[in-house]
């Protein structure tokens, strides 16, 4: 796998583990920031992507799974790798169901962790790209006029120009003009493309707002 640079955020209350991990990551060219408590971590500003979180499940105060929930609710799409001193199956299942990338029990092999981190970077980078793309689409969508938006909706539903004209009012000729404006503004190369764009926009609008970057 090609090496992807990025930053790992480590939350573990055992200092010797943090020190050792930092050593390991540095040797691999990975930046690491360590926190001894989840509260500390949640207060910190997130570095530039790609980032990845390595989190111990048994932490004083807020436990790892709760931190995961926190992040999900805040819309932070960080990939999370759980590490733990004593894993039990229910706990790991819960973590995975909540969307964790991986779950490793101590003592883990360094190579395993590095592998998971690299995968995390890739996932994060891909997610960021997707998010940026959708952001762009949203930005473009805003530039549509009201009428253009109406036409957009009907076009992606599969209505013909005549149908659109009958529904909305303007003449077919006008409808054609609106249609081509929409394609241009949204950057769509074909009807199929436009439909995909519409789907992406719909998906985003029904979930949480775009995350901070």
């Amino acid at each position: 796998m090609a090496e992807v640079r990025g930053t790992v955020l480590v939350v573990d209350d055992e200092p010797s583990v943090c020190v050792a991990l930092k050593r390991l990551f540095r040797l691999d060219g990975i930046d690491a920031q360590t926190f001894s408590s989840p509260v500390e971590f949640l207060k910190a500003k997130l570095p530039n992507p790609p980032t990845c979180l390595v989190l111990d499940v048994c932490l004083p105060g807020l436990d790892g799974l709760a931190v995961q929930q926190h992040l999900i609710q805040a819309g932070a799409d960080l990939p999370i790798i759980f590490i733990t001193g004593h894993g039990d199956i229910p706990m790991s299942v819960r973590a995975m169901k909540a969307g964790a990338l991986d779950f490793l029990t101590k003592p883990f092999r360094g190579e395993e962790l590095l592998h998971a981190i690299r995968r995390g970077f890739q996932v994060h980078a891909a997610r960021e790209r997707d998010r940026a793309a959708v952001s762009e689409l949203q930005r473009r969508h805003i530039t549509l006029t009201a009428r253009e938006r109406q036409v957009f909706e009907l076009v992606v539903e599969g209505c013909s120009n005549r149908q659109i004209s009958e529904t909305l009012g303007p003449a077919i000729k006008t409808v054609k003009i609106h249609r081509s404006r929409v394609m241009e503004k949204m950057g769509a190369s074909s009807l199929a493309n436009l439909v995909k764009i519409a789907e992406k926009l719909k998906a985003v609008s029904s979930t949480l707002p775009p995350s901070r970057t």
Partner: protein
Amino acid sequence: MQVGPSRCMNLPKARPGSVAIGHCGSETVSTAVPIGRLYQLFSQLISSRGLHPLLDEVLDVAMELQKADFGNIQLYDPNTRSLTIVAHRGFRKNFLKHFRRIDDGSSAYGRAMFTRTRVIIEDVKSDHEFGPHLRAAATAGFRGVQSTPLFNWGGALIGIMSTHFRQPHRPSPRELNLTDICAKIAGELIARKQSEDRMRKSEERLRLMVEGIKDYALCGLNSSGRINYWNKGAERLFGYSPGDVLGAHFSLFYDNDDKEKGVPLEILQLARRNGRFETQGLRFRKDGSSFPASVLITVLQRPDGRGEGFSTLVHDLTEQRRIEQAIETTRADLAHVARLRAISTVAGVISHEINQPLATIQTNADALTSMLRRNQLDLGELKGIVVDIVKAGRKASNSVDRVRALLSKNTSKETDVDIHEVIREILTLVSPVLEDRHIATEVNLGSQCAVVKARKAELRFVVNTLVTNAIEAVSETTGGPRSLFVRSLCGQPGEAVIVVQDSGPGFDPRNSELIFEPLSSSKPHGLGLGLAISRAIVETYGGRLWVTCSPGKSTTFQFSLPLLLRSMCNG
């Protein structure tokens, strides 16, 4: 002449079998035949088995004495105050039906019943009150009637004896006197026969009842311990039939050792002394097998106080013992499960404890490997790695030692332990620390003992954990008071409650259950196991451990333990 019982005869109290005849007025009873007949009657009465033959005899004699044409005897029921015909001569169905039950004074019978004196109606036709019965009398064919009451020797009315005459008639005084003799003795004998019958019937009922009880063995003994009664239950329990065992001595059921030591006879003596005696022990069946028995011996007393014998009630305890055993096994199983729970809790902790340093070692080793591969041999870094690895290794081995100490194979047995004593011991041990840290201590255990059945070491662990935690908590307090309270209360009856309260900062009450979870220790060097194990220990013995706190003011740990019954505190 109306004759009442008390006026006629001065008959002294007669012994059964003898006849006393006295003098009445100026006439001497001299006729041989009637006397002979009476004598005959009395002999028969005494030997007769049943009530009804007796009544027939009495009636016959009375009728002979008076040369009557018809006669009947009615028995009196004191509950309903009525008469019922129980014997008759010469009457037919209609008559009997008509006079089936007498409860008013219109007839001669009724009058005799109410007045308790003899009633003579010479001619029923000229007796106004007899009116309602004229027709019956006419059909039956009599004109004259006399009714003589029968009494027992206590003076209670037993019945009415009546004779009837075809023609209007009045018996002569002599006839009446003889009749009185007859009535007198007949009354008493009838009464006795009636009560014998009643007694026999109820004895019979009781016998059947007792016989029938199959679940309890009832065995009657005479005063020297020989068996004189053996019910079905005894037969079932011991296997001996009545024939086998009646007349034998009851020590038959004991083993030879007991017999030699004189145990059976001693039991009888103890029973005699106290009226009853209860004991438990092995008893033996006919086939030689034995069973655990619960035995109750009661003395059977005669009214005059002379003991008549014993009744023994024997119950087979085998089933009961089996159930007790099952309960004990279940209890042991539960205790074992609680222990396993505690152990599994600890096992989780062990793995966590050891995996942390192992992870450090592993990751450092991985880093070292990476360094070697890349040829980045920074000496400072290398040294750091080695130091960390060694430290982690030591930590792991410490953890193992500490946990092993806690888990050391527990071969100690449960004994009777006084919690108060344990508390005092621990407090003595920590008193230097208390002094040193200026912790004011107040101890209130009361004067009673609180004894539980437990392993002393485990109780010491619990008390030590709570006291040590309390000390640590107050040691952090800088501004406020530093105090430690230890108190002993009685919770529910039969339960001791120990309270350990410190004036430390406490914690968030929402976490009060969390602190009993393993690894929740806030101390850097603690295992976080103390409270978890303490709770497991307390719960094994059937108690509870819980905590309450006022944040910033105090923390109170309490645990309850069930006490051994005989040391229930009464404070």
